């Protein structure tokens, strides 16, 4: 039956929940988020070696285990619940998906195995200083130089751009948009970490000053294939949002059951019950949206469908899950009252993640507008 998780997928979910509860409690999230790199290399290594998470959706011929976007969405949901600090979204959702969508065989063979075993942290750089997420806003330029290319321009809000060993850069040439690989040690590359709202996910501004690069997309304009890769990443982000929202609801409900005011648990008051019921509607619907996107991504990657439904589903999921997560994260603080407003309480960590992920890769309005265009409104 479609749209139900298999026992194996449910098993993956519960083992991940145990793993992250043990290895990445929020005390650890806080500690790691304050480090310069923003992730724990030991945990990263365990994720790769014990659970083989980095290689989950990378095809076996490139050193991965060839699972689908559905399994990937389970991982993101669980990592979203636990707010895990790791360059997983950048490497596995963004870079690997873009490599698979646009990359030539040589590029895939060169970098995917490193991503799969966790030895290479990679990311994709799209957005520039105007802060707009549409590919049409890209100004960075790529000029051919013999067998390779030279990049000029600046990218910002690059996820894990402060440490990525490989940057896949979207730049313009005379054929339109292309995707260019830049390894982290290239001359002319300047990275500046940004001070960010959501400190569990690091962002950087990256300048390219005549940086030598290798084009990985085929001749011509890469917009369509690149969008497919980015849509797969959006599907993963939506699952992360659904997972975070589900955790916020749990926190709120657990608190409402035990916090006593006026001589009774606040969860026995209808004002709180009704908020929680509305939060459940948002959470379950966000899961539906995220699963729809995950299933569409799996179909697109498996050749069952072209990227058409994935584009629709990704826009839908990014719009809906972003708003749902923010609503639920905000209500979670409200239900906690004063304690939820303290630095020590975890509610604001989720609130920060919710707002930041709502705006990353385009806010809900932008995705609704894209959805409208795609379905012919």
């Amino acid at each position: 039956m479609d749209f139900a998780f298999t026992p194996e997928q449910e098993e993956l979910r519960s083992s991940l929940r145990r793993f992250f509860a043990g290895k990445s409690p929020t005390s650890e999230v806080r500690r790691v988020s304050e480090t310069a790199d923003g992730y724990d290399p030991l945990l990263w290594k365990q994720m790769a070696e014990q659970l083989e998470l980095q290689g989950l959706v990378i095809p076996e011929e490139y050193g991965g285990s060839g699972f689908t976007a559905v399994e990937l969405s389970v991982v993101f949901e669980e990592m979203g619940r636990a707010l895990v600090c790791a360059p997983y979204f950048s490497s596995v959702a963004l870079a690997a998906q873009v490599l698979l969508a646009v990359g030539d065989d040589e590029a895939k063979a060169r970098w995917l195995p490193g991503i799969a075993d966790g030895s290479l942290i990679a990311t994709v750089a799209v957005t520039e200083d105007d802060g707009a997420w549409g590919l049409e806003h890209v100004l960075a330029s790529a000029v051919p130089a013999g067998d390779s290319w030279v990049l000029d321009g600046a990218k910002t809000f690059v996820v894990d751009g402060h440490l990525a060993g490989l940057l896949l850069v979207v730049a313009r040439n005379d054929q339109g948009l292309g995707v260019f690989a830049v390894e982290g040690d290239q001359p002319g590359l300047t990275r500046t970490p940004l001070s960010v709202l959501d400190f569990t996910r690091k962002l950087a501004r990256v300048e390219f000053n005549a940086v030598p690069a290798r084009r990985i997309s085929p001749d011509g304009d890469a917009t369509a294939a690149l969008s497919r890769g980015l849509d797969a990443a959006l599907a993963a982000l939506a699952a992360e949002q659904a997972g975070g929202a589900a955790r916020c609801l749990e926190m709120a409900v657990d608190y409402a059951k035990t916090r006593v005011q006026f001589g009774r648990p606040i969860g026995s008051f209808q004002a709180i019950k009704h908020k929680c019921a509305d939060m459940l509607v948002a959470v379950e619907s966000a899961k539906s949206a995220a699963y729809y996107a995950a299933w569409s991504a799996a179909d697109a990657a498996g050749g069952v469908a072209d990227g058409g439904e994935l584009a629709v589903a990704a826009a839908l999921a990014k719009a809906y899950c972003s708003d749902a997560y923010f609503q639920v994260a905000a209500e979670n603080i409200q239900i906690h009252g004063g304690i939820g407003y303290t630095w020590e309480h975890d509610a604001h960590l989720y609130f920060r993640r919710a707002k930041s992920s709502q705006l990353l890769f385009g806010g809900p309005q932008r995705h609704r507008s894209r959805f409208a265009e795609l379905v012919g409104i």
Partner: protein
Amino acid sequence: MHLTWTAEDEEFRAELRAFLAEHAPGKPPKDAAGRLAREKAWAATKFDHGWAGPSWPKAVGGMELSFSRQVIYQEEMTAARVPSHPGVGINMVGPTLITHGTPAQRERYIRPMLRAEELWAQAFSEPEAGSDLPSLRTTARRDGDFYVVNGQKVWNSRAELADMFFALVRTGTQESRDKGISYLLIDAHAPGVTVRPLRDMTGAEHFAEIFFDDVLVPVGNRVGEENGGWRIARTTLGHERAADALNQAAFYERIVGELIALARERGAAADPVQRDQLADFAIRARIMQVNAIRTISTIMTSDEPGPTSSISRLYNSTFEQQLHVFATDLLGGYGVLAPQDPNAVQRGRWTWGMLGTRASTIGAGTAEIQRNTIAEQVLGLPRDPAMPSRQ
């Protein structure tokens, strides 16, 4: 995004399609009496060919279908645009009789119920007992082999057409609340029964009030124990409502399509603010479809309806309310016209909808009561100590 079916399920679908191709009634006539006759005739045809009561046991004339086939059944019936059953609440009273009725009651009532020879209506709500139904005051006093019923019921859809009512009445003290309620089957044509149409805020008469004035009901028409009616009033069989979830989603998807067409016609689809809202409705309609698929998939794999089933009514009712308000706004100046005005856009359908969907968050349990239920039964939040406890 779709459900997949086994070859056997597809065979079942083909059989059903063949039946529909041969027997489905033609277009509905314009007059109300003609439409009702068509609905009754179709219910009888379905029963006589073994296509009635998809989830009901074969022993009472039902089909006893597996859940996946119930989904197919609902899909095909909707696609064929055949009329729905004219009786109200047969999926409430039917399962109650099947589970708690006596053999004599099943024998007497179920076949005519399925064939729509006898139409049923529900008689639960009262003027002073809405959300707080256990405070109902219609009394049934035992007198030999009869109950003498007195009181008033309200919000009874299609009660003026009914031959039988299934009713909740007070047989215990007022203070005994839900522990003093019995479930009676009442002949709508009995002396002392008065049905009066109730004009609702749309101006139409979809509902009625029922008055009982010393109405004699044989004790044999009580279902279950005396004072044991509350517990059995909500009996359902399997997941009949969930089997129809995809159709509801498809229905709203169609409405959204019509809303978009309206917006285009009125030049609003290009306006960024209106467009954003249209996209939001289209997104929510599609999520409703995924919610439905998740509910159905969960029932098929685990026999449990899961959380998406409990949120669907709240989600859908809020959705249709907001959609119709938005549509009325799109009409601009024409939104001030009554739906009957000759200049009303699309014969006033959006205004009808805006008025009519006020009931969506009230009928069959208000949105507030639903939120309480979700909070307590799905999320496990504690009961309000000020509220009386229920069985």
